[in-house]
């Protein structure tokens, strides 16, 4: 019994951390995905994609610190590289490069979310 109590506390802490990380990562990825779509729409409709990209960067910078507790830092770095490309191509007329950046960011967000979520893909 003496050892079961710390074990139960540890188990509860581990489960708590997992649930919090799942909720945080999902929320951050969903928010970022929405922001990516907004940026894409702005570009397509001749709006202000630069502002949308800046907004995405701001959002990511806010989430990055906590995300690095749960997500592989390499994946976070890759997202930042993609975000830097998006910021550059949002200012230019290079449509193909812009859409490539958008697709890359979406894939990375999907991957981050999938790696955290409980499922066969993340377990095996």
């Amino acid at each position: 019994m003496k050892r079961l109590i710390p074990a139960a506390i540890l188990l509860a802490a581990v489960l708590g951390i997992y649930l919090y990380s799942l909720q945080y990562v999902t929320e951050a990825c969903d928010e970022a995905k929405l922001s990516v779509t907004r940026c894409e729409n702005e570009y397509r409709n001749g709006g202000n994609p630069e502002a949308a990209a800046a907004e995405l960067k701001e959002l990511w910078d806010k989430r990055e610190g906590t995300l690095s507790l749960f997500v592989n830092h390499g994946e976070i770095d890759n997202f930042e590289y993609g975000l830097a490309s998006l910021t550059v191509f949002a200012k230019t007329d290079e449509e193909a490069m812009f859409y490539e950046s958008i697709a890359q960011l979406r894939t990375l967000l999907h991957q981050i979310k999938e790696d955290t979520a409980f499922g066969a893909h993340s377990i095996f």
Partner: protein
Amino acid sequence: MLFLNGITKTDFANNVIGDFMIITIMRTVILYIFVTLGIRLMGKRQIGEMQPNELVVTLLISEIAAIPLQDTTQPILNGVVAIFVLVVLEILISVLSMKSLFMRKIMNGKSAVIIKNGVIDQQAMRSVRMTVLDLVELLRGQAVFDISTVAFAVLEVNGNLSVLLKSGEKPATAADLNVPEEPALLPLPVISDGKIIEESLEAIGISRGAAMKRLKGTPVTEIFLMTMDRSGNTNIIKRRKIK
């Protein structure tokens, strides 16, 4: 001198390498604390006394702790969570093993009688995949050089061999010789490396002053080890000056 895009070699060394080293140091300290905590929660066991499941957990913990240390892109939390899950599993399995004989058999296996009345059980040896040379070596480790003197030899689940000698081969005890039994007194270290251990004095039931009298004026700092038991038997080893 410029090294990379306007960065000098000194800047690179001071900032990049410096930061990286601090990250590694911090990660090592954090993981060390968590691994120590985990092992402490699992309880005290020596490597040689580990049950199979404990050995597996210990090996896995060391491997898991090494990953975030070597790869700084891995969140440290992944390692810590994995270590804690292993500790929880180990505690649960050890509690279940205590409660259920069936669970104990599954997780730890069961001991095997290798020698009965001086005769080797070859079937048992084959089932535990033990050679005669292994057996002889283990017997020698128990100061047994003649198999015929062994009443029972049991191979325990942790790999140790427990040996019971035939009654005629056992060393004579005080009871055999009708020597009156004296209560066993445990000598405790009262001074260790020039420092008084108050807990030992309390356990023996002797005052600090009474213990100091035994030093006959020698300063405590000059004492390397002093042991005492409840009846007052004292052993003093003075500190030697080592060049």
